[in-house]
């Protein structure tokens, strides 16, 4: 049959389990040995005492004959009565008859050691030549009492020492070992439960103190590592946000670039379409006067007897076709120069009213031929502007030609000029012609626009009027080259108004002052 042994789990219990048996194993034999030797000493002392008693009696009887001195022997024995351990004493002659074997002296008197054999006894020859034998019987009761007292005292001391050792060990263990361990355990549990790490105080220089110090260092390293991780995380988060912003920017830029690319692509496609249209238009526009020139030339060559008047008409047609070709070529060259930034303005002071009048006179015949009324409202006072005279004339002729061309018979074209409040010079060419659809206002300002559908490569076939379509774009480019602008306002029911603006600095000061004075007068 076996009994389950419950092993102690606490360190204190284990410590005491080792310490207490060790204490018992050492203390009980040690104190037992002490008691044993103490009793030995007591026994030796008792033996020495009675040996001394016997020796003194023997010495007295050696010096004095007990038979010669009556009462001597009894007095000697009676002197021993003071010793509590003495049970009895007798002095007997050794060589006497049985009758004479009666004690010479006895203690208690006349009784001696007649009764019983209790206790220890000492028998030794005494007197001169050993005539007597001294018998001393003594009790070891005092030894037993002393043994009992010392045994009880030893047990008490052992018990007390055991309790004190137990209490001291427990208290010492709890303070020296238990307290640091409890602090350590509490810190570990707190760190596990809450993640909060705190430094443990109270570590000494012993092994547990070093363990606590090591734990504190470990905690500190953990905290530093966590802080570093947090900092890295923060940086990572900031980097991520920056990357997100960068991505957004990038996407935005990509979108912008994509849109820009799409626009440029559209522009490139438009340019391609314009080029195709230009080639087609130019082929047509060049072929028409060339065909006329060639045709009239062939007729003149074939018919040698042609009437002089008809010959003159044919020659005039040939010359007109050449002029038309020359104008077209000049427009193309001007447009190419402006696009290439190679057109230089030859600026001179020009009186605006005169320039307007000359241009109007140049197209009046054409307008009248179409049944149009053409009106000019020059500036109230002469305005001297610093412009390229050829460029200004080109602008005015292009605008007037367009107005005459796109205004049906019976229509009205009017040219006005003047200064605006901000000092800029303003020239307006207005007609009540067919107008331009709003969605085509931008297209007509592009080369070869002429109000047709720009997406069509066969636009020239759809063009209702002949011409290269360079008029308005060239006028606009020349106006902008002068630092001014050209804008259109048109509707298909109210005709078209073209507004050309020249910056104020193009107005000559003296002329401006003169005009101001004239205005005030």
């Amino acid at each position, binding site marked *: 049959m076996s009994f389950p042994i419950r092993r102690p789990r606490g360190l204190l219990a284990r410590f005491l389990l080792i310490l207490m048996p060790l204490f018992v194993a050492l203390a009980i034999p040690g104190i037992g040995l002490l008691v044993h030797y103490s009793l030995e000493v007591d*026994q030796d002392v008792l033996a020495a005492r*009675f*040996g001394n008693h016997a020796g003194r009696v*023997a*010495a007295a009887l050696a010096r004095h004959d007990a038979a010669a001195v009556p009462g001597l022997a009894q007095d000697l024995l009676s002197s021993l009565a003071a010793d509590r351990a003495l049970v009895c004493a007798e002095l007997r002659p050794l060589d006497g008859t049985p009758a004479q074997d009666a004690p010479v002296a006895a203690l208690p008197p006349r009784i001696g050691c007649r009764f019983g054999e209790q206790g220890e006894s000492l028998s030794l020859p005494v007197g001169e030549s050993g005539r007597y034998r001294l018998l001393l019987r003594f009790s070891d009761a005092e030894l037993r009492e002393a043994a009992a007292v010392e045994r009880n005292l030893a047990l008490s001391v052992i018990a007390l020492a055991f309790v004190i050792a137990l209490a001291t060990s427990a208290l010492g263990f709890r303070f020296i070992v238990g307290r640091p361990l409890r602090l350590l355990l509490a810190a570990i549990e707190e760190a596990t439960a809450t993640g909060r790490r705190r430094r443990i105080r109270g570590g000494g220089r012993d092994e547990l103190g070093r363990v606590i110090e090591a734990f504190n260092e470990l905690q500190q390293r953990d905290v530093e590592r966590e802080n570093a991780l947090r900092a890295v995380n923060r940086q990572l988060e900031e980097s991520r946000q920056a990357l997100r912003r960068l991505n957004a920017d990038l996407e935005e830029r990509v979108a912008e670039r994509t849109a820009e690319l799409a626009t440029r692509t559209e522009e490139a496609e438009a340019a391609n379409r314009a080029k195709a249209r230009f080639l087609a238009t130019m082929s047509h526009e060049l072929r028409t006067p060339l065909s006329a020139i060639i045709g009239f030339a062939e007729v003149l060559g074939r018919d040698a007897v042609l009437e002089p008047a008809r010959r003159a008409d044919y020659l005039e047609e040939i010359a007109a076709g050449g002029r038309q070709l020359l104008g077209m070529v000049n427009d193309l060259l001007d447009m190419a120069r402006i696009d290439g930034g190679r057109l230089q303005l030859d600026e001179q002071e020009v009186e605006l009213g005169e320039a307007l009048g000359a241009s109007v006179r140049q197209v009046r015949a054409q307008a009248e031929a179409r049944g149009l009324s053409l009106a000019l409202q020059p500036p109230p006072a002469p305005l001297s502007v610093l412009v390229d005279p050829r460029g200004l004339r080109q602008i005015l002729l292009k605008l007037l030609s367009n107005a005459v061309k796109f205004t049906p018979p019976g229509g009205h074209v009017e040219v006005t000029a003047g200064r605006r409040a901000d000092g800029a010079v303003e020239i307006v060419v207005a007609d009540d012609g067919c107008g331009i659809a709003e969605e085509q206002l931008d297209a007509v300002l592009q080369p070869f626009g002429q109000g047709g559908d720009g997406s069509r490569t066969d636009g020239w076939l759809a063009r209702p009027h002949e011409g290269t379509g360079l008029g308005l774009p060239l006028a606009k480019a020349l106006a902008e080259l002068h630092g001014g602008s050209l804008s259109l306002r048109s509707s298909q029911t109210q005709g078209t108004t073209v507004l050309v603006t020249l910056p104020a600095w193009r107005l000559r000061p003296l002329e401006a002052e003169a005009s101001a004075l004239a205005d005030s007068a």
Partner: protein
Amino acid sequence: MSRVRIVSRPALLAATLVLGASLLAPLSPARALSLSEKTALQAAMQQHVDRQTVEGGYLFFDREAQAVNSLAPVAAHPMILTMGEHYILCFDFLDQAGEKVELDYYLARKGDGFVVFHEAIAQRDVVRAMMQAGKVKPAE
């Protein structure tokens, strides 16, 4: 986590017992004497001392001084030493100058009693040397 045990419990107990035994070994008596025998030994020494006492003075011959000295007996030592079959008891005296003089008595068993066969004056160091050599032990 493995637990490191420096000394096992049975080994610790055995070491304690061995240590205790080794400490107690030199103190173990050689031979047990009864109380009566001890008393007889003390009485034999007392008788010897009394026999050599003349008018209260214990006489002995000082070889170095070549003179007879008289000592006053003071006290007998309770401790009894054994040396094989023989015994050693001690007695303290005072000389005329009041200085302590130690005498050691060597006794042998004779019949029912004991008899002094040698006395050594002021030679306690010899006894101590024999005790350290294990030749002389306290009697139980």
